[in-house]
């Protein structure tokens, strides 16, 4: 049973049903029913044309559901008169489905859930597991999302930016469960990159590949955070890095820079360095300058200050940091690091402890607490 194949076919089967006039919510339910059938029947009797099989079964499920609703009788008869197409159209309008699932009328969490279900083909249970919420809650989240977009016309071009943001959320917010959401986000972004020619889609795909390639080395066996400089670079996935760099270079060559491409360029420079000491910080600062121009985000300026600290020394980094509001998350952590590098251990220890108190997650808090403890035990004598 090739579950990955099933999931990759989901969006195109769904779009065929919607194209034939099925309401989005009803079509989505029918496709899920067909997937369940496939899981049940295919191991013993695999079809020759998997997609054709799914379309036929899903369409039958849709008609069954429609038929039970007598008020729809007339419309159903009209639909049934239409010839069942032998082969499905070659034009893949999966793209429309991405736009629909990332529709601006949806909240971020609804857009993420709907994308994973309709485009990704994940079951409600799998999505609920990944986000650690009850299945009933996730079912409601998805059905609300379907209701919200059910009036949206399917053939209108959407905003690629919203789709990319949803995929980025999937990549960043996955927890646990039997589906690796980061890998799923890469799969969906790869599929999107195949359907649409857009440098920022390529930029996001490159960014995900470059981050994912380093995932195994980012945490210690005990779950603790391993900072970039201390990561075991032999454990990086060099094939994924090479692919990410190649995709990024092609995108950059088109001269339509966007924030994902710029972020990917920074990630690529980190991934390219054979050792942390050989990182090209000067170029990284230049990319942060580009990124700041594109986004004007204080978070970017904060990261830039840290990069400046590496390129031009900790004093320069602290000067860059001084003009950024210190209420910004991770500001204190960055200041602690730069003070330590500048040799002011006492201030650094105090700031690390303060940063630990404000850390946004457990792994970071533990890491920062340990940094503070390390410096304190050094100055205690």
């Amino acid at each position, binding site marked *: 049973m090739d579950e990955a194949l099933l999931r990759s076919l989901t969006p195109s089967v769904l779009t065929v049903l919607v194209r034939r006039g099925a309401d989005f919510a009803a079509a989505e339910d029918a496709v899920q029913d067909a997937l369940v059938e496939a899981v049940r029947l295919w191991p013993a009797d695999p079809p020759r044309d998997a997609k054709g099989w799914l379309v036929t079964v899903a369409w039958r499920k849709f008609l069954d559901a429609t038929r039970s609703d007598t008020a729809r009788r007339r419309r159903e008869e009209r639909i049934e008169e239409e010839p069942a197409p032998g082969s499905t159209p070659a034009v893949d309008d999966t793209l429309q489905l991405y736009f629909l699932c990332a529709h601006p009328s949806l909240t*971020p969490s609804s857009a*993420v859930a709907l994308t994973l279900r309709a485009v990704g083909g994940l079951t409600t249970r799998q999505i609920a597991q990944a986000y650690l919420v009850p299945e009933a809650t996730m079912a409601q989240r*998805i059905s609300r999302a379907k209701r919200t977009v059910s009036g949206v016309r399917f053939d209108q071009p959407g905003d690629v930016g919203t789709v990319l943001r949803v995929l980025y959320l999937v990549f960043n917010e996955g927890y646990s469960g039997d589906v690796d959401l980061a890998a799923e986000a890469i799969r969906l972004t790869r599929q999107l990159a195949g359907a649409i020619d857009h440098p920022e889609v390529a930029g996001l795909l490159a960014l995900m590949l470059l981050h994912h390639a380093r995932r195994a080395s980012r945490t210690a066996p005990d779950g603790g955070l391993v900072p970039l400089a201390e990561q075991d670079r032999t454990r990086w996935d060099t094939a994924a890095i090479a692919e990410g760099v190649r995709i990024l270079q092609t995108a950059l060559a088109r001269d339509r820079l966007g924030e994902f491409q710029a972020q990917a360029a920074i990630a690529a420079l980190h991934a390219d360095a054979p050792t942390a000491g050989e990182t090209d910080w000067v170029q990284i600062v230049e990319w942060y300058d580009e990124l700041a121009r594109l986004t004007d985000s204080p978070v970017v300026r904060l990261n830039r200050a840290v990069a400046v600290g590496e390129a031009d020394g900790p004093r320069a980094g602290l000067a860059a940091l001084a003009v950024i509001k210190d209420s910004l998350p991770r500001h204190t952590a*960055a200041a602690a690091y730069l003070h330590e590098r500048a040799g002011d251990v006492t201030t650094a220890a105090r700031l690390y402890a303060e940063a630990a108190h404000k850390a946004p997650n457990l792994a*970071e808090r533990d*890491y*920062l607490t340990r940094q503070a403890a390390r410096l304190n035990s050094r100055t205690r004598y």
Partner: protein
Amino acid sequence: MAKYLLLKHYRGAPAPANDVPMEQWTPEEISAHVQYMRDFADRLVKTGEYVDGQALAPEGTWVRYDGEGRPPVTDGPFAETKDLIAGWMVIDVDSYERAVEVAGELSAAPGAGGKPIHEWLELRPFYAASPTDPECHAGG
């Protein structure tokens, strides 16, 4: 998509505006209060924001390890002095603003005289279980 814990306190929180002990409410007022909480939880399930919730009994005991081969030390209950948690609910919402909005709604549960009790609720964010945050090179 961030999880928050909403804590209801028996004691320890600032006094609510409509501060009449529950045993002095009418049975109808208690029913209305309980129904409000049920409806509230149902609404959160429907919006896809409910994670879990339970009511807790007022008796609590402090427990401490007391050394090898000895039974744990227990202390309490001290219902008069200690901060007691009456119940909790976990929500999963898109933003802090939404979490505050939801908590505000829960705080509006009706009490004596059918008026909102304006109960104080403690709102605590969960740490993410496994962050996949973009690279940190400064430990931050």
